[in-house]
């Protein structure tokens, strides 16, 4: 309980549970699907890096699914969904005009204030929250470079869903952009020490990025994933090990200082 209180200041402390958010747009990019929902209450409060809990329509799904805020424009929140299992697959089949229940914005945000130079590092679907970060930073006049790694050609088509000026892509099978992982891109970049790193992706990528930032003397933030039940701090189902002990991805996270995470 006291832990909860310690960290209460770290992120927005308002909730919006929005029922029947209309699906305003659905766009498919290879393995990923971009959904745009009309959710003014969520959009108004959203900060980059935060997520929403999404109710999967239809019987047969008990728990809500956590999805990062991909974009926030006016009263619309965008989600980028990869079909990994039955629930996310169902969400990719939503159609314009249908509606879906979401709760959010939830969790901690990527700090962006005062940042002049940003490097966004994304792995696969982990790139989703970084568009919102890029939009936020660009609006504040910061310089933004993004490096995204994808599995293969099909996954790399997700890059088409992003609008970031300096966006480098790597694919493990070399079908698109740099052959290899996102780390190969980072190795080629010359980044100023004033650069802030924003990372989201699979655990091995987070580990590699953390290692790289230490070597380069950069500081930054990572957004982590965990299996969730409540998504709102009640169940302690989503803990990860950090320098501050076990913390909840849904509550103290998903965004943590890069030097705190223990991937």
């Amino acid at each position, binding site marked *: *309980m*006291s*832990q*909860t*209180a310690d960290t*209460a200041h770290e992120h927005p*402390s*308002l*909730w919006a*549970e929005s029922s029947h958010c209309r699906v305003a747009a659905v766009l498919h990019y290879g393995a990923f699907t971009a959904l745009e929902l009309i959710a003014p209450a969520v959009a108004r409060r959203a900060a980059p890096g935060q997520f929403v809990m999404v*109710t999967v329509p239809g019987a*047969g*799904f*008990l*728990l*809500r699914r956590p999805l990062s805020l991909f974009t926030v424009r006016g009263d619309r929140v965008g989600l980028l969904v990869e079909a990994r299992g039955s*629930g996310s697959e169902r969400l990719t089949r939503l159609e314009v005009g249908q509606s879906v*229940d979401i*709760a959010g914005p*939830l969790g901690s945000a990527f700090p962006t204030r005062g940042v002049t130079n940003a490097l966004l590092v994304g792995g696969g679907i982990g790139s989703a929250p970084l568009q919102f970060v890029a939009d936020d930073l660009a609006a504040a006049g910061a310089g933004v470079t993004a490096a995204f790694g994808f599995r293969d050609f099909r996954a790399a088509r997700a890059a088409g869903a992003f609008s970031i000026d300096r966006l480098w892509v790597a694919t493990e099978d070399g079908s698109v952009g740099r052959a290899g992982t996102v780390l190969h891109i980072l190795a080629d970049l010359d980044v100023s020490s004033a650069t802030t790193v924003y990372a989201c992706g699979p655990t091995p990528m987070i580990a590699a990025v953390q290692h790289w930032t230490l070597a380069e003397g950069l500081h930054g933030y990572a957004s982590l994933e*965990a*299996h*969730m*039940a*409540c*998504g*709102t*701090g*009640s*169940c*302690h*189902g*989503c*803990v*990860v090990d950090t320098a501050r*002990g*076990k913390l909840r991805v849904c*509550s103290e996270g998903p965004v943590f200082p890069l030097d705190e995470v223990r991937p």
Partner: protein
Amino acid sequence: MSPAQAGSVDLSVRLGPLRLEHPLLDASGTFDLLEYARRYDGDYFADFPYSAYVPKTVTADARTGNPAPRVTETPAGMINAIGLENPGIERWIAGLPEWARLRQPVIVSVGGNTPEQYAAVVAALEAHMASAPADEVPRIEGYELNVSCPNVSSGLQIGADPAATAGVVGACRPLTTRFLLAKLTPNVGDVTLIARAAVDAGADALSLVNTFKAMVLDAQTLRPFLGNRTGGLCGPAIKPIALRMVAEVAQALPGVPVVGMGGVMSGLDALEFIACGATAVAVGAANFTALEAPQRILSELRDELNARGLASPAAARGLALGA
């Protein structure tokens, strides 16, 4: 206006010495008051939806809980292996002032691996309440002894053994005059044996069911999915078993109040537990489906009673029992 006032139905119930505004409590470990308050626009303390608050189980010592992953979904249910993560009774007590102003009564869920560990928690709280200024302590009016933890000596769950269960209840009973519940595990052959042992040892009431020991595999590796290998199954999937057990206990121990739980997602589910003999009903996994789940379930319960011309929960209690 809280749903409890609306409609022609009087939702209030007496749970032992407690007079509750309505029959719905939160199931321990599934609802964190402070986390809701932090995310709420208004004053969540004023709008607190449950008639009493059962916090997550607290133990004498601090516990870091089980390795991740700790939760996942199953057909019409979910499995969890949190491992009683909690700050320990000392830090827990230090946090009380943060929510001391909650109007509703609090039933503290207590865990441990030995009778002594349970007793230490109750003793610490009784001592604190005797000394602390009233406005720095919530209205703690009862204890729920969660005997689903493994017994350090036998390794088995304490709650699977009548003697071990009686040992825990017996160790706590002398330390408090407050309402004492024993929370029973369903991982037993005959739940009435454990129920009777708990009552004979001094429990005022019983709550059931806790989760069913279960296992989920990772579809890729075919290895146990949870960091703890096994976990506890709950949700609608197990409701029919929970209803059967609540009915058995209510029938075997007619005078003993029962808090029923297990897969309550709707007002009708709650009414079914009452019909099986429960005085109050706890909502667990449903809290994860929507932040307003308790409000919805409560108004559905009122409607279900209204639709059947039942003036109160008491009028429905035990309708499913007997010939």
